[in-house]
C-alpha cells in the first residue's frame, strides 16, 4: 500500500515540510527499533532484568499516534511501552537508565521496563496489569472535562485487554460521559500465546467498540501515515467535543511476548509474512520513491540513533545506584522519612 501512496504522490524536495515530518517519523521508528535491539542484547547480558516486552514491528503505531498529539495531551500506556515513551519524546538516556534501575531513570529507577513515567510530558506510565490503565485514562479525561481543559488523553492497550471487564466498564463510562479520550487498541493478534480467535467471540474489535456508541474504526497499524492521519482525525473530533474515539490498530509483534517467551505458539511463516510488512521498511520505501530519502540520509539517521542509544547505555552503566537507605521512599508523599510509622 505504501507503494501506491508513493506512486500517487508528487515528488517533493527533501526540504519540504512533508519530507521533514517524514524524516522525523522515520527517525523515531529507527530510534525505537535500535533502543529495543539494545535492550534485547542487554537482557541477554543480564544488565537489564525483570519482564521486558519488545515493541519491534509495532513502531508505526506509537509513532503515528504521538505525531497527532500536542505537548499538553496525556498518554496512558502498558508494559509494552518503550515505543510509546520514545515517540512521546522521553529522553533516551532517562529510559535506558530506567531499564538499568538507576536513579537517573525516568521513574527514578523504581519502575524498570514496565513502569516508565514522565510527568513533564504527561506520560502517565506503563501499567503492568492488563487493562488497568483504561480507567485511569478516562479519569484523566474526566479531570480535563471538569476543568475545561483542551487536552486529549490517549490510552493504549492490546486486543487481549479488550476481554477484561475494565475495558467494558471504561468504554461505557467514557461514552456515557462524552470524555475526551482516544482509545488505541493495539491489535497484534496475540495476547501472550493466545490468538485473538481464542480470546474474542467477535474478533472485529472496532465493531465491538462501536456497539458502545462511540466512533471506532480499524487502521493499518503497519502504515505510519495511516496511523497518523486516523489519529489526527480522531484527536480533532475529540477536541471538538465529539466524545471518545476508538482506533483498532492492526499490527504484529515480530518478537516473542517477553524476553521469557520461547514463542512456541506462532508459526514461523506467520511471522515471516508480517515481517514483509515491516513498518520501517515500508516507510523507507515510500520516502525513497518520493525522493525524500537517500542512502546517506538513512545511514546518517541510523548512525545518529545508534549513537544516542550507545551513549545512553554508557551513561546508564556509569550512573550510581540509589542508596539502600532510601528503600522506603515514595510510599507516601509527605512522610517519606518516617519509614517506621507504617
Amino acid at each position: 500500500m505504501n507503494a501506491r501512496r508513493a506512486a500517487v504522490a508528487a515528488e517533493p524536495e527533501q526540504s519540504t515540510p512533508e519530507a521533514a515530518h517524514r524524516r522525523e517519523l522515520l527517525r523515531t521508528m529507527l530510534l525505537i527499533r535500535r533502543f529495543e535491539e539494545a535492550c534485547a542484547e542487554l537482557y541477554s547480558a543480564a544488565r537489564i532484568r525483570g519482564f521486558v516486552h519488545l515493541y519491534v514491528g509495532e513502531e508505526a503505531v506509537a509513532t503515528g499516534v504521538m505525531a497527532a498529539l500536542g505537548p499538553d495531551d496525556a498518554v496512558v500506556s502498558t508494559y509494552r511501552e518503550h515505543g510509546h515513551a520514545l515517540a512521546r519524546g522521553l529522553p533516551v538516556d532517562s529510559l535506558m537508565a530506567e531499564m538499568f534501575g538507576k536513579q537517573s531513570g525516568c521513574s527514578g529507577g523504581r519502575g524498570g521496563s514496565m513502569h516508565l513515567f514522565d510527568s513533564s510530558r504527561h506520560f502517565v506510565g506503563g501499567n503492568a496489569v492488563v487493562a488497568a490503565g483504561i480507567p485511569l485514562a478516562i479519569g484523566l479525561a474526566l479531570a480535563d472535562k471538569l476543568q475545561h481543559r483542551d487536552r486529549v488523553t490517549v490510552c493504549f492497550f492490546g486486543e487481549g485487554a479488550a476481554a477484561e471487564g475494565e475495558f467494558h466498564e471504561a468504554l461505557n463510562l467514557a461514552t456515557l460521559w462524552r470524555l475526551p479520550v482516544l482509545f488505541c487498541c493495539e491489535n497484534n493478534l496475540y495476547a501472550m500465546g493466545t490468538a485473538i480467535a481464542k480470546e474474542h467471540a467477535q474478533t472485529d474489535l472496532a465493531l465491538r467498540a462501536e456497539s458502545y456508541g462511540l466512533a471506532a474504526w480499524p487502521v493499518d497499524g503497519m502504515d505510519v501515515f495511516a496511523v497518523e492521519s486516523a489519529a489526527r482525525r480522531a484527536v480533532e473530533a475529540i477536541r471538538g467535543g465529539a466524545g471518545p474515539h476508538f482506533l483498532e490498530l492492526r499490527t504484529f509483534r515480530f518478537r516473542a511476548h517477553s524476553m521469557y517467551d520461547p514463542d512456541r505458539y506462532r508459526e514461523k511463516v506467520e511471522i515471516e509474512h508480517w515481517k514483509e510488512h515491516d513498518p520501517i521498511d515500508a516507510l523507507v520505501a515510500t520516502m525513497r520513491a518520493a525522493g525524500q530519502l537517500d542512502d546517506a540520509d538513512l545511514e546518517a539517521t541510523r548512525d545518529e540513533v545508534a549513537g544516542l542509544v550507545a551513549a545512553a547505555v554508557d551513561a546508564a552503566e556509569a550512573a550510581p545506584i540509589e542508596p539502600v537507605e532510601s528503600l522506603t521512599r515514595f510510599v507516601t508523599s509527605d512522610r517519606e522519612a518516617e519509614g517506621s510509622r507504617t
Partner: protein
Amino acid sequence: MTATLVETTYREALRAALREALSEDERVFLMGEDVGSYGGCFAVSLGLLEEFGPERIRDTPLSESAFVGAGIGAALGGMRPIVEIMTVNFSLLALDQIMNNAASLLHMSGGQFNVPLVIRMTTGAGRQLAAQHSHSLEGWYAHIPGLRILAPATLEDARGMLPTALRDPDPVLIFEHGSLYNMKGTLAADAGAVDIDRAVVRRPGDDVTLITYGGTLGKTLEAADLLAADGISAEVVDLRTLRPLDDETFVGSVRRTHRAVVVDEGWRSGSLSAEISARIMEQALYDLEAPVERVCTAEVPMPYPKHLEDAALPQPDTIAAAARRAMRPVAV
C-alpha cells in the same frame, strides 16, 4: 472557647463535611453509585445533587473498577475526587485499582505522580445482611503500603476526618460503619478538620486497655461500663487511623495497665487485631501481666438470623469477659 453545641447525627456530620468540601474547593467532586438522585444508599449525600449539580455529584453505573480507576485518574489530573463505594463488600471489584494503581503509582513513578484521592465506603455487620453484605475489611486494607485508612467512630471524626483526608496528597480510604449512621449526639457548631495521625483514649482507666475502632467503639465503651460495675477500671483506646498505626498511644496505655484486649469486627485470623497484638508483644512484652486478648468476629460467612449474627460479632459481654480473663490469667 465554649463553642455552641448542635444536635446532629453521624450521617449529618458526614454530609456537612461533604458539603463543606464541595463548597470550599472546586476540585472536589463526589462520584459513585446512587450518590445523586437516590441520595446515597445510606442517605449520606441526600440533597447534595440539588445543591451542587450532576457534574459534581456524579452518579455512576455499576462499574466499581472503572469508576474507582477514574477517580484515581481524575486525582492524577488535578482534581480532588471523593469516590463512594457503596459498601466494602463491593470494593473487592475495585481492589486491583486500589492496590496496584492508587497505592503504587507514587512509588512506581519515582515520586512523580501522587494520587490525592479519597474513597469512602460503608463497612461492617449487624444489620442481618448475611454473608455477602457484612464484611469488615478495613483491617485487611490496612495491609497495603501507600494507603491511609481511617475509621471514624464518633461524630467529631465523621465531621472532621474528610477535610483532613482531602488535604492528604496520597490516597485515603474512609470506612463508615453501617450501624453508626443514625448515631445521635452533639457537635460543636464550628466543628471542622481533625487530626488523622493519632489514636485517642476515649475513656481513661488503669487496669486494662481495651483497643478498638469504628463500629465496635460503642460496644467497647459499654463493656468498660460493665467492668466498672465489677470494680475494673478499663482504658478505651480508639485507633481512628488503621494505617499508619499510632503505636505510641496504645502501647503506652498497655505499658501502664499491663493488660490488653483488642476488639475488632474483622474475622479473627489475620485481622488487624493480630497486628496490634504482635506490636504489643514486640514493644511491651515485659510489661504484660497476661496474654493480649482478642475479641473478633467468628470465622464464618455472616449468617442471616439475628441470634447467630449477634453470636458471631463482638459484644459488650464478650469484651468484658475477655478483659476479666486478662485480669485473672491462668498461669501455665
